[in-house]
């Protein structure tokens, strides 16, 4: 996908996540739309495009968040590398694998964020954070992935083979 289109898409997703989704959320939880998009794209298109999306998505998230600029990109990059290294063909044909992957990726992403914040002097409250925010977000992201992954899969087929040019 054209990287400029990726910038537009991921920035829009980050804006949605920080403006519209909180109003639609119940119990204060909203899906990590950008994380879902980045991980899904990495699974579908491979590591190269996935890493670019991780960088763009991470920066877009950090611009709208109280987290230091670059932190989300720093966490998403190795996460995408890990998830994108697997067998793309399996991910593409079976919906179950991406669902498991997004659940684990959500936990990984948020745990890494908590760890980073603890280093930065913010109270992490591991147990409460895990039960009250991380686990519910993991399930919510998995639920959102269910309709989103086939949609991205369709987009991936429409675009054709991987090609990136700025």
């Amino acid at each position: 996908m054209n990287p400029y289109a990726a910038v537009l898409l991921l920035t829009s997703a980050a804006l949605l996540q920080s403006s519209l989704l909180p109003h639609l959320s119940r119990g204060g939880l909203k899906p990590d739309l950008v994380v879902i998009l980045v991980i899904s794209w990495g699974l579908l298109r491979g590591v190269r495009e996935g890493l670019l999306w991780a960088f763009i998505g991470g920066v877009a998230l950090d611009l709208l968040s109280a987290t230091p600029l670059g932190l989300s990109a720093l966490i998403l990059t190795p996460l995408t590398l890990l998830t994108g290294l697997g067998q793309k063909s399996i991910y593409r044909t079976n919906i179950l694998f991406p669902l498991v992957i997004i659940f684990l990726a959500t936990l990984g992403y948020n745990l890494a964020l908590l760890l980073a914040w603890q280093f930065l002097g913010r109270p992490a409250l591991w147990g409460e954070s895990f039960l009250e925010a991380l686990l519910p977000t993991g399930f919510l992201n998995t639920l959102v992935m269910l309709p989103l992954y086939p949609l991205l899969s369709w987009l991936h087929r429409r675009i054709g083979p991987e090609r990136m040019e700025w």
Partner: protein
Amino acid sequence: MSQMRGIPAALLLLLFILAFLALEVTHLLEPVENVVAQLFFPLQQGLDSLGERFTNAGRYFQDLEMLRRQNEELQKLVDQLAIENVRLREAEIENITLRQQLDFKEANPDYQLLSAQVIGHDPSNLLEYITIDRGSGDGIAVGMPVVTSQGLVGRVVETYPRSSRVLLIIDASSSVNALIQNSRATGVVQGKPGGGMVMRYIQQGEEVKTGDLVLTSGLGGNFPRRLVIGQVTAVRQKDIELFQEAEVEPTVEFDHLEMVMIITDFEQ
């Protein structure tokens, strides 16, 4: 000459007609008429019905076109009214919020308040921050308390020329010195992941009950005194522990936060 030749034929025809009329008058043609009527009736009926159908079809298409036009006009009207309805509802909600803010202003004449709209939330579920549409250009500075008519919201932690970031009191990194309204017991209200709050460091022996109102104590100088924080929903007290703890439900509905006020003249 040729004209003369047609006269006998015309006379003959006239004669024939007269004879026909005579037969008709004398009802002698009735059996023939009956047979012909029997033969023509279904044909006539069919053709008449067909004609009626053609007329109806024409009218149907005319009506259809008219109905389509009417439908379009009504749909436009419905759309306009729906938009108008949403606008009025929004204006009503805004009016209620502004009236509540005015009431708060009148009840707290010492505070210099500036209204702001919430324009964003932190995208992470682990952080409880909001972004407001007032910044350093409007005189907003780091540390200023943010409230609604329902109670304390948080404090400004970052400012930009036209916007600011506010740390909500439900964030895990937020601590507010507080007191229980009835017993005057003091403690610290801290945010919890998931949007709740807990009041810690309440001395053993202090009376804390469910339903008690929790206010800012003003200790530490981060927030003005007597701002409503929330209500006690549960108390955890163990004799072996040094302090008691109380679960606090915020009075501010953080999920539906749209407008806030910044106390601009508060000096820490």
